[in-house]
């Protein structure tokens, strides 16, 4: 039998004076930075970046035939699409939807696993301010998503040059405003992906189940929006999936970049508000 003993000395630990939100971010970051999230998140997105880039370069359409893989805006990708400023990160628009699903899943798992495991009871007891608790989680997951997005952009950029050489794409235009193009590409990739995460978080807070949250999120994107598109094609681009894809593509003919950004931020605000309201007011019965 293991020997166990208790000390009855006066408290000897120092209590840090950090603000409550900083404490919750630090705490959440340790849990978010767990191996399954690190290796799963970064690994899958890096793999998607490479595979989708390869797919786009290897299947470039003949402009006159207008066939080939759909680009971010839904049209077939041509060499001309790649041979422009920012062409190096052109595949990001297509990667964005898959990255959104991955991030939605990660955020949903991070939120719902607290309920699945019962950890939520300990967390709320230790930090009774639920807004602070969920706020800390959102910020920690956002930081994680920024890193994921940065790695995705870097991997996409890194594979672009060898692929361009292999498929005889002129990379000279890529040198034009390269930094600005990278920054805007990163922004257009990051913001929709963050909102995908917020959608995953909201569904997880509502359903308290990671499996259900992921199922509902992906089902909405792949099935429900498709069905709505059949019945009411005029509003498809305004739905979350359509809007986030449009922003990732830098705007489409249906939805300008500015409109897509505004609508994306609106979706982000709505999902955040719903999550905070429900989390703050619902009993912890898990």
């Amino acid at each position, binding site marked *: 039998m293991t020997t166990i003993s208790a000390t009855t000395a006066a408290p000897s630990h120092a209590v840090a004076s950090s603000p409550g939100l900083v404490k919750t971010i630090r705490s959440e970051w340790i849990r978010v930075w*767990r191996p399954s999230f690190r290796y799963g998140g970064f690994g899958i997105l890096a793999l998607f970046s490479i595979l989708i880039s390869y797919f786009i370069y290897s299947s470039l359409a003949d402009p006159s035939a207008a066939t080939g893989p759909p680009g971010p805006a839904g049209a077939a990708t041509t060499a001309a699409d790649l041979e422009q400023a920012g062409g190096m990160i052109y595949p990001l628009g297509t990667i964005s939807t898959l990255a959104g699903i991955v991030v939605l899943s990660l955020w949903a798992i991070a939120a719902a696993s607290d309920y699945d495991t019962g950890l939520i009871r300990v967390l*709320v*007891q230790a930090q009774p301010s639920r807004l602070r608790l969920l706020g800390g989680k959102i910020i920690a997951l956002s930081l994680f998503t920024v890193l994921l997005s940065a790695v995705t952009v870097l991997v996409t950029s890194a594979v672009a040059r060898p692929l361009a050489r292999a498929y005889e794409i002129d990379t000279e235009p890529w040198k034009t405003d390269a930094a600005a193009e990278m920054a805007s590409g990163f922004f257009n990739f990051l913001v929709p992906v963050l909102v995908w995460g917020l959608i995953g978080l909201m569904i997880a807070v509502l359903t308290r189940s990671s499996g259900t949250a992921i199922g509902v999120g992906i089902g909405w994107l792949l099935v429900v929006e498709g069905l709505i598109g059949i019945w009411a094609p005029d509003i498809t681009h305004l739905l979350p999936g359509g809007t986030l894809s449009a922003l990732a593509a830098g705007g489409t003919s249906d939805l300008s970049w500015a409109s897509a950004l505004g609508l994306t931020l609106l979706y982000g605000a709505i999902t955040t508000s719903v999550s905070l309201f429900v989390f703050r007011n619902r009993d912890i019965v898990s």
Partner: protein
Amino acid sequence: MSVITAEGLTRRFGELTAVDNLTFEVPRGGVVGFVGPNGSGKSTTIRVLLGLIEASDGLGTVLGEPITHPERFAHRVGALIEGPTFIGSLTAWDNLRSMAALRGISERRIHEVLDIVGLTGREQDKASTFSLGMKQRLGIAAALLPDPELLVLDEPTNGLDPAGIVEIRTLLKSLADGRRTVVVSSHLMSEIQAMADDLVVIRFGKLLYSGSLAGLMEDAVQQVIAAPEFGVDLPQLIGAIEGRGWSYTSYGDTLHVELAAANSADVGRAANEAGVTLRQLTPRQDNLEDIFLRLTGGTDAELAASRGEQRTSGGAS
């Protein structure tokens, strides 16, 4: 001063009243057993007291602060509610580090609590590789991080083997000093009897008893169990006992004579004088479980059935 007070505390879930007008106080220091069978409302009461769920009615305080403001006492309370909860893919150290960060506690304290619960040397193992007993100890370590004045442990010995139960019991008794109060909820009466100084007993969400264990055990019935070697001698044995004016209860050919243990020899002598040879002569005292059943007047199944009958007759009238 009481560390916990409840006054008419009630929590309803739809038509079900899980916590029903509870009024009790938990004194400072020592181990306090929060006792009741499964489904009696122990966990719900703990959740209400710790601010995880809201009370439907009534008042309560924890460490002198109202339960409606858990932020005022959370840093002085450690809790393990319905079993230990960790992220299995993280090490014990990282799991505790995460909880310490949330409370703003330095990492030095993690070493201390690991030492207290006997997990020093296992801190770099993943929580998923821990046995149930080790997970319970890790859960208690997490609850001890703020060096709490009040430690609330919900069923901390659930699923443990006998050795593990003894370990946890020893630990909890050593943790309950004059400054710290340890509230342990359990449906295992024998466990609570072995470690508690005070008790809060509930059933179907209602309070049955609140006070010292010693006070409750004063009501313990002492008996001497006697059984004749041959069943045909039972009438002579009964005659001898009745002749001395002793009360008894008959269970088959066994008699439970209501006498103090010290009177065992008297029962033996009476049987001998009646020419009866005994095959059993055993002194026995009610344990907490017996007293609990006496307080409630029956087993869970019996009470549930009677409640069902009451509802049925109430509905018919």
